[in-house]
């Protein structure tokens, strides 16, 4: 099962390496990991996507909680939640392909944020599947470069992860 774990962690040097080290030391997998400071600069918010059986994910959350730098965490996948990922993708866009690519970007509700004679750079936000679908739709031949942010997530409704 895929789980999205949201973590509030001390914004200190070395905190990220404790999380990454825990995963490699215990043989857990990290599918994606995003981290940035919150409105409180002493805290960082981390979104970590992992896969594992219920027992493994239970251990992962317990082990994460055990890290002294981890202030609080929730498994977003335990309740209704929203996940988003942002992608910047540079596409070969010359000649006849230009118009078709523009249409595709519109269909996927992306934005073209940079243009040259031969390329488009597109910004696209959505679930991981949506980004995958866009990549498939444009085809690998057209792709010059892909940058994905990894998943960020938040719980639906009034539930929130804060101190």
């Amino acid at each position, binding site marked *: 099962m895929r789980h999205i774990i949201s973590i509030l962690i001390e914004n200190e*040097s*070395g905190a990220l390496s404790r999380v990454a080290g825990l995963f490699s030391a215990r043989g857990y997998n990290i599918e994606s990991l995003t981290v940035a400071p919150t409105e409180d600069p002493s805290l960082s918010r981390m979104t970590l996507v992992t896969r594992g059986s219920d027992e493994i994910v239970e*251990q992962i959350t317990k082990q994460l909680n*055990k890290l*002294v730098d981890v202030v*609080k965490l929730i498994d977003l996948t335990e309740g209704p939640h929203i996940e988003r990922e942002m992608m910047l993708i540079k596409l070969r866009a010359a000649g006849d392909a230009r118009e078709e690519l523009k249409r595709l970007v519109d269909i996927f509700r992306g934005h073209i944020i940079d243009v040259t004679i031969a390329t488009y750079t597109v910004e696209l936000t959505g679930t991981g599947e949506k980004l995958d679908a866009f990549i498939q739709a444009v085809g690998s031949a057209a792709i010059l470069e892909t940058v994905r942010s990894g998943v960020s997530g938040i719980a639906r409704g009034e539930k929130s992860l804060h*101190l």
Partner: protein
Amino acid sequence: MELTGAEILVRCLKDEGVEYVFGYPGGAVLFIYDALYQQDDVKHILVRHEQGATHAADGYARSTGKPGVVLVTSGPGATNAITGIATAYMDSIPMVIITGQVHTWAIGSDAFQEVDAVGITRPCVKHNFLVKDIKDLAATIKKAFYLATTGRPGPVVVDVPKDVTMHRAEYFYPEEVAIRSYHPVMKGHPGQIKKAVDLMLTAKRPMIYTGGGVIWSGASSSLTEMTRMLGYPITNTLMGLGAYPATDKQSLGMLGMHGTYEANMAMHHCDVLIAIGARFDDRVVGKVEYFCPEAEIVHVDIDPSSISKSVKVDVPIVGDVDHVVKEMIRLLKEDKRTPDHEALAQWWDQINEWRGVNCLKYDRNSSLIKPQFVLETLYNVTQGDAFVTSDVGQHQMWAAQFYKFDKPNRWINSGGLGTMGFGLPAAMGVQLAHPDATVACVTGEASIQMCIQELSTCRQYGLPIKVINLNNRYMGMVRQWQEFFYEGRYAMSYMEALPDFVKLAESYGHVGMKIEKPSDVEPALREAMSLKDRLVFMDFITDQTENVYPMIAQGKGHHEMHLSPERELA
């Protein structure tokens, strides 16, 4: 008044009540050593290798319940300490390790004796810190002691760059410290405790299984009270020996790979298992599928991540063992129900039948010295009242089987990491903490050579440790596995070119003895014990072929124990 960082550090140790610091100087910690030199409150013990410093601090901690403190220099000082830090981490021992670091401006430049101490220790510490600003120094030391000693204890490293020890600041040592992300749970959940007590009272074939957590929680007396109230059988893990008196009739001894037949059989057949401060280690559990197949399991542990890690439990209770057990006692006293005496009597009949197998029997008529005989005699000669440290291997298992610990904090060994070389330096820490006590280091000719240099430290500080070297000219446990599982191909397990241990001990200024006949074992031990102010190195030439029995092979269940080959069970 402003103090230098080095002075602040030493003052912190003093204010923390630190008696001994175990360490070794070097460039990055010279200011700290200079500050140590100019005061008398904190005593420094100079070891001969940083690994020795960590094990000595560890032995001090295990025998006193107080944190052990280590001071080493940057680079190789820190890397040499790693084995000892990892040893403490695996056994949840409170230690604070101060590592010197190169100047802050030199960090990351591959400076002389630079190593990323925080990075390199990260996987084997409870937490670690790099102090970059002298203003943070005192508070960081306070946090380090707080983290090391609370919750599930463990080692904490504080990496201190040289310039931080040089700069000046006002000294202020906080009385208390709060860490917003760290709140160890002390009290167990009342509903869960109630559930556990209900289950305990309805058991027909109960079993209590306890580990090192009981010792660290200081819960031996409450555990003993509860166990006697209930009349249930109890087994201790290797780390938990002494938490319940081994000579008591309810004690079934140690369980696990080299545990007793009765303890393991009772585990296999129990219907309610009460696990307290134990972590279901693989050497205890054996094959998970066969573990306690009929039992509902209660598990009390201060570390939530220990619960249902390898074995799924039915009633988890997160909390401090002493708190929880006391609460259980209160509920048991209030409860009108009593244990099912009839079922319990039948259960004890069954257990006594298993006991009758006498699984620790060995050949008492051998013309060679049997290692078990040495340990049994050690137990008798010291009247069961010694502190016993051990190294790792066969001798460790025999010590655990044959020295019956009636008190906690007396059995000091590297259980989790299995660190050869632990025994002698650990014994130094124990002896310093208990200057008048008998401290025996049970070791083998392979293990002892891993930290033999500490004989020199023992000389310097006049530590009258009794080294019991069970010399079988093999790395015994390796040889045993090679005999059982590798068709007797004894690859590299033979110790060639052994030193003359008697002369070696003498050259360090100690007393050496070589004992070759069974009839000499007891007189020699009595003589050694009478030399109260001398370290005596006793080289016992033992039977080379002796193996540790009983044994559960890896991947087998508790019911699949092997006794010695002559007396294999059906």
